[in-house]
């Protein structure tokens, strides 16, 4: 089959991105922000088209560098849905950019293309290129409000640490290439045990893990996350939290389970330790935060730890749980950031007390944020609970062979209980603030129709994945099966 056809979804996204840039030339300035809706419609159409794809067997392109299997398809849909919601949020944010609104939309589409390439990467070359496509795009997205010192500072911090981590990544890939003589995941998996045992290859893999660990904000490569989450424009933060993190996990899963499945058991102890430390760091540092976006930054670190728990099980159940958790995370986090984007626009900073009285200004915004917090806290019947349940279940299923997992499960549960404190704090700030606000200070917030639908979609998603998880569990199982047959 034609190689370009196999990567049709990615190509369509790239074309959409270029089209947005071109359309920008003929769009009058007043209409430019509506290009975001055009981009969102295009992404929605591609998302629908992705459901027309039937894969009796995995397809490969470019000499096996690019694969399209159920696993890739699951993540393609995930990224498309995330981008769709992020674009709607961006339109709400657009008036805060002085210029270049269309470029912002186009960059989101390019980052989306990078994520989708990452989902299909079966070769260290494509891994590197897709990762850099995401990262470099995000440098720009992060510092897009270029008159705001916060945004610039976030951008430069992300850039320095990101560039540093990609230097490690490239060096690591070089070592792997040098030892194994190949960069293809499939061929690396067939390499002789002696090759896999070589110290050089192990070092190379470790350096690759550093690069990926940076993307998913796992301790000790998490330092950038709170600053960047706080300083970046809210839509960029939202996409960073969902898309970029998921892209990191997609690559981590591919490397661990396709490229070096034989080395998995050797890494499990390291993964368990990283997961435990990341969870504890995230929840403990989140407690004193006052800025909501910063709080979400620490929360995203803790969630990276939970996701890593699923990876550390090295089992199909664990992978499936990771996929499910990410699905719930998408609706939850994007819902929260949509609210942050709209509700906190007129206040100085994004401090939590500024949420006071939100339920009177817009019940829908308050309800969405409250549900997002409850879901993040892992309370049924919302998505976050079932995701955490699956993760813990997958860990206990294999804990007999790897007793360190028992400790990790205990740590994770402690983390969940601590996290309740600050998630409930956000809800409390909305509904019953410490200092009551006067009625006159609470103008109602008008929501645009697309935003209203997006919020409802997020709520529906959180409920759907929490109450009727069956269908997504099956999808996740199917995707995990292609990775771990």
């Amino acid at each position, binding site marked *: 089959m034609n190689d370009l056809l196999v990567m049709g979804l990615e190509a369509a996204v790239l074309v959409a991105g270029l089209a947005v840039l071109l359309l920008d030339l003929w769009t009058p300035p007043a209409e430019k922000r509506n290009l975001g809706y055009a981009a969102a419609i295009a992404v929605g159409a591609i998302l629908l088209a992705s459901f027309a794809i039937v894969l009796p067997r995995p397809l490969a392109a470019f000499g096996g560098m690019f694969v399209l299997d159920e696993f890739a398809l699951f993540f393609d849909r995930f990224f498309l849905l995330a981008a769709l919601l992020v674009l709607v949020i961006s339109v709400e944010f657009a008036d805060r950019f002085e210029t270049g609104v269309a470029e912002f939309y186009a960059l989101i589409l390019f980052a989306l293309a990078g994520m989708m390439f990452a989902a299909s990467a079966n070769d260290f070359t494509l891994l590197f290129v897709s990762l850099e496509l995401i990262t470099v795009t995000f440098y720009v997205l992060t510092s897009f409000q270029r008159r705001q010192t916060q945004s610039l500072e976030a951008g430069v911090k992300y850039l320095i640490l990101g560039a540093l981590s990609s230097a490690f990544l490239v060096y690591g890939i070089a070592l792997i290439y040098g030892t194994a003589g190949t960069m293809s995941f499939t061929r690396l998996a067939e390499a002789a045990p002696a090759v896999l045992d070589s110290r050089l290859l192990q070092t190379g893999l470790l350096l690759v893990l550093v690069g990926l660990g940076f993307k998913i904000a796992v301790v000790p490569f998490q330092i950038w996350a709170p600053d960047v989450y706080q300083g970046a424009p809210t839509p960029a933060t939202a996409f960073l939290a969902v898309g970029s993190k998921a892209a990191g996990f997609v690559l981590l899963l591919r490397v661990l389970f396709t490229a070096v499945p034989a080395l998995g058991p050797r890494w499990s102890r390291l993964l368990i330790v990283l997961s435990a430390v990341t969870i504890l760091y995230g929840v403990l540092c989140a407690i004193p935060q006052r800025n909501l976006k910063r709080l979400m930054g620490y929360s995203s670190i803790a969630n990276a730890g939970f996701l890593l728990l699923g990876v550390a099980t090295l089992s199909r159940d664990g992978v499936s749980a990771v996929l499910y958790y990410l699905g719930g995370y998408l609706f939850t986090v994007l819902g929260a950031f949509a609210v942050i984007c709209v509700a906190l626009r007129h206040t100085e900073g994004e401090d939590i007390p500024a949420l006071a009285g939100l339920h009177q200004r817009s019940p829908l915004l308050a309800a969405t944020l409250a549900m997002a917090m409850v879901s993040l806290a892992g309370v049924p019947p919302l998505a976050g*609970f079932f995701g955490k349940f699956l993760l*813990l*279940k997958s860990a*206990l299923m294999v804990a*007999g062979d790897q007793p360190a997992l028992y400790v990790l499960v205990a740590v994770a*549960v402690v983390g969940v*209980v601590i996290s*309740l404190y600050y998630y409930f704090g956000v809800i*409390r700030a909305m509904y019953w603030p410490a200092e009551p606000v006067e009625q006159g200070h609470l103008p109602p917030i008008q929501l645009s129709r697309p935003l209203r639908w997006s919020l409802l979609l997020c709520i529906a998603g959180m409920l759907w994945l929490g109450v009727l998880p069956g269908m997504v569990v*099956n999808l996740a199982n199917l995707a995990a099966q292609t990775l771990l047959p």
Partner: protein
Amino acid sequence: MLAWTIYISFLGAGLLTLLPRNSAALARRLALLTALAGLAVAVAGLIRFDPAAGTRMIADVPWIPALHIRYFLAADGISVTLVLLTGLAAVAGILFSWNIEQRTKEFFAFYLALIGGVYGVFLSFDLFLLFVFYEIAIIPKYFIIAIWGSTRREYGAMKLALYSFVGSAMVLIGMIAAFVVAGHLTGHYTFDLTVLARVPFPASFQRWAFPLVFIGFGILAGLWPFHTWAPTGHVAAPTAASMLLAGVVMKLGTYGCLRVAMTLFPAGVTMWRTEIAVLAVIGIVYGAMVALVQKDFKFVIGYSSVSHMGFVLLGLVTLNQIGLDGAVLQMFSHGILAGLLFGVVGRMVYDRTHTRELADLETMNLGRALPFAAVTFVIAAVASMGLPGFSGFVAELQVLVGAWSAFPKAAIAAGVGIVIGVAYLLRAVQRAFFSDMAARPVEAAAHHPLPPISWPERIGAGLLIAASLVVGLYPQVLLNVISPGVASLLEAMRKGGAL
């Protein structure tokens, strides 16, 4: 049919959120109607329940087939009794919170959601489903206390929420572990309680799984030394919430201990029952002694709950028919009486006098100013002391008899607890309502007569007193359904290696 208690409650909660903003009167009526409908279903369920037929299936459909999780509702005699208790407490609680003016519809929406969750726990026979309902019941509780509460409400609410979640986290781990171990053993993964109860879990596993789950549920039941959330939570909560907390929510804990921890891990019970009996007795005596020295009226009742729940826990680990019968009956009895006591203290007294300090109440001559409240409290107090004729007597007597054969020393200590219970209740009655100091005329009280006791309060109090009297005078009405349920649980536990 009993499943409708769940659906009605959630439906009522949903309808309430749809009401327009300023519709307090409508919200109250709708909430009362919903609770009454739930109570009617619960009563009908009790009447139509056939004890000889064993556990009655209500609904069983696949929910999450990939994990063999089912939406499995069923009821045995224990469930039916506790569903009835929930119905009674729900109606009484709404009657006692008729005066809530601030965000009325939200209050009752949370209230009914909590009730729905509680019904769900008592009727779930799938462990996962039970856990989900259990968690659903915790969230509204936090909101009710944090928004409508009084003394240090945020502290009380957060403490309660954190304690509850620590408990449920322990239960969650134990539950998944049971699922996994049972699956490895039998090759069949399930959360079905009736199936899990027949799985011969290895003793080494039960040794840690049982205390994990039992204490996890026990935290919510006020098991000493994890009880400290209870007094602060009760005091911070608005009246209706304290009534539900003490009346129903703490029962979720003991119910979980019985239905999950003890049924699944019978060998674990045998290993740990002495330790638990000791903790239960400490709770009984400690709760009573602390209640004896409290200055705040509501703290007296809060600690008395810890003491009375100790009897339930003691009854559970006797592992004999009469002790377990007593424990279940005590859950019912304490639910009714604690609700009544909190209703008097929180609604009848505090909402009128705006103080709960016994020292202040002494000067107010409440026995004369609020005769109805005084009489109700005296009735509730003597019933709670265990006076024959009321439900408390039958229940605690059975627990003591059961404990006498299992742990004689514990039975004696618990008897001491009863005596102290008489003392703190008499002290509270005397200081709050019939103090000598009240003979002195107090200016403030004379000039601002307290509002009279309203009809909803009278009806609510009457309902609870009647329930306690009926069960006290004719305990067979409940024992007839409880005993067969307890007997079959005990039988299963014996087969599973208890004793």
